[in-house]
């Protein structure tokens, strides 16, 4: 049920023979849908990591695709075993779930309309833009603190200064329609959308988030699962596999666009 667990999750995974991951598959190259031999599949470098993890645990992988802002709810509800969705382990999130070690540090970029590229060449110029980001993501915070210059505290309280929508696809439409002027997204994601949409461009400024980076979320009270996940991640990092996965995912992405 809900609440804390008594370290039973890993056993359950082993017993049921499958690892159920939650992800929001509209975030290339982390995770995205694509056509493989005419079939709709979910791929991306997060998924590749999850596959490696499942293999290490000796179970099969099952993917649940949902809106990003519903992922932690599903984890709490027990619908999924872990969240792997380019999620950053913020302090807020750490209050309610555990995180693995960080397996990837992202850079964030800003998508704007092609015609506005010159206008939004600097961070200061972006300050006046109508900003947007995927609802419940780390990019909302980046927009508030690093672009708008709010303090962490103010940022947490400020409502409606950044337009937040659950799916980045819809934000792209908002951008094209002029409802917003800029979308803050992870750089590779931004690059993918810019490549596919000639009327969009990538603004010059990029951002790093120090307590950003991606980690796997696990329901509290499951230390052995956290350990198991970390073991796999550390092996992958040591073997340079993460970069490899990333490159593969981008390759699929590019091939799909053609």
């Amino acid at each position, binding site marked *: 049920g*809900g609440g804390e667990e008594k370290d039973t999750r890993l056993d359950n995974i082993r017993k049921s023979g499958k690892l159920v991951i939650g992800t929001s598959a509209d975030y290339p190259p982390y995770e995205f849908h694509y056509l493989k031999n005419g079939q709709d599949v979910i791929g991306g470098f997060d998924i590749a990591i999850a596959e490696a993890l499942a293999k290490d645990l000796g179970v099969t992988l099952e993917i649940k695709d949902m809106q990003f802002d519903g992922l932690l*709810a599903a984890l709490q509800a027990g619908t999924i075993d872990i969240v792997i969705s380019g999620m950053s382990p913020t302090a807020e999130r750490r209050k309610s*779930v555990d995180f693995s070690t960080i397996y990837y540090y992202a850079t964030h970029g800003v998508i704007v309309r092609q015609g506005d590229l010159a206008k939004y060449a600097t961070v200061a110029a972006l300050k006046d833009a109508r900003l*947007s980001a995927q*609802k419940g993501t780390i990019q909302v915070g980046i927009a508030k603190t690093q672009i708008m210059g709010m303090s962490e505290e103010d940022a947490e309280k400020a409502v409606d200064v950044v*337009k*937040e929508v659950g799916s980045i696809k819809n934000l792209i439409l908002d951008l094209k*329609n*002029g409802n917003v002027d800029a979308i803050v997204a992870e750089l590779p994601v931004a690059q993918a959308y810019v490549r596919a949409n000639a009327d969009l461009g990538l603004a010059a400024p990029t951002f790093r988030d120090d307590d950003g980076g991606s980690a796997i979320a696990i329901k509290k009270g499951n230390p052995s699962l956290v350990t198991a996940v970390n073991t796999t991640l550390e092996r992958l990092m040591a073997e340079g596999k993460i970069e490899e996965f990333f490159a593969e995912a981008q390759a699929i992405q590019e091939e799909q666009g053609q």
Partner: protein
Amino acid sequence: MNFSFLARYWPFYLNGAKNTILLAMFSVVLGTAIGLILSLMKLSKHRVPRFIATAYIEFIRGTPLLVQLFIIYYGLQSIGIRFPNVVWLSKLLGISFSDFMAGIVTLGINSGAYVGEIFRAGIQAVDKGQTEAARSLGMSQFMTMRYIVIPQAIRNILPALGNEFVVVIKESSIVSIIGIADLMYRADTVRGNTFQPFEPLIVAAVLYFLMTFPLSKLLAYIERRMRAGDK
């Protein structure tokens, strides 16, 4: 269950509920205007307006609101229909006025199809004998509509229209998906902020219920009163 988040987040809910009600109200107003036109088109003697109105109504009633939301919201804007952002109104609402307008247009276009049918049915439900009596007194078609049919149709229509308001309150929750800050959107924000996936939704459900239930009871009561008055 733990509802301690309410202490901090109740203004979120209040603001969301206010926006939901405003959204529903203006949507029904727009829907009423659209519906009135559609019903007159449907009752017209000419084929073309009748066909257009029927096609509109059937299409809207035959597809999910979610699909319409995406098509109308993004589609309207991509063909250049855009709403100006009136700053002081945005401040008043606490959300972008142009977004708010877009939500109203989306819901209004949807609601219009249903209201159109309410109007048509309301007019047709007026006993044919009423028209015959008026015409046999020498009243013109227009006079008959104006003095006899419409006043009676309104009594059939008003309760159904009130009910449409209740329906729109509920259905407007879907605009939260495209980022309009209604009650559902706020509840979702609270879920995200508190990492409590469940309790904030219960609060939203209760608030929706508090908005719709008394209203529909009131409508049922008014309708009963009106019908009793007829006898």
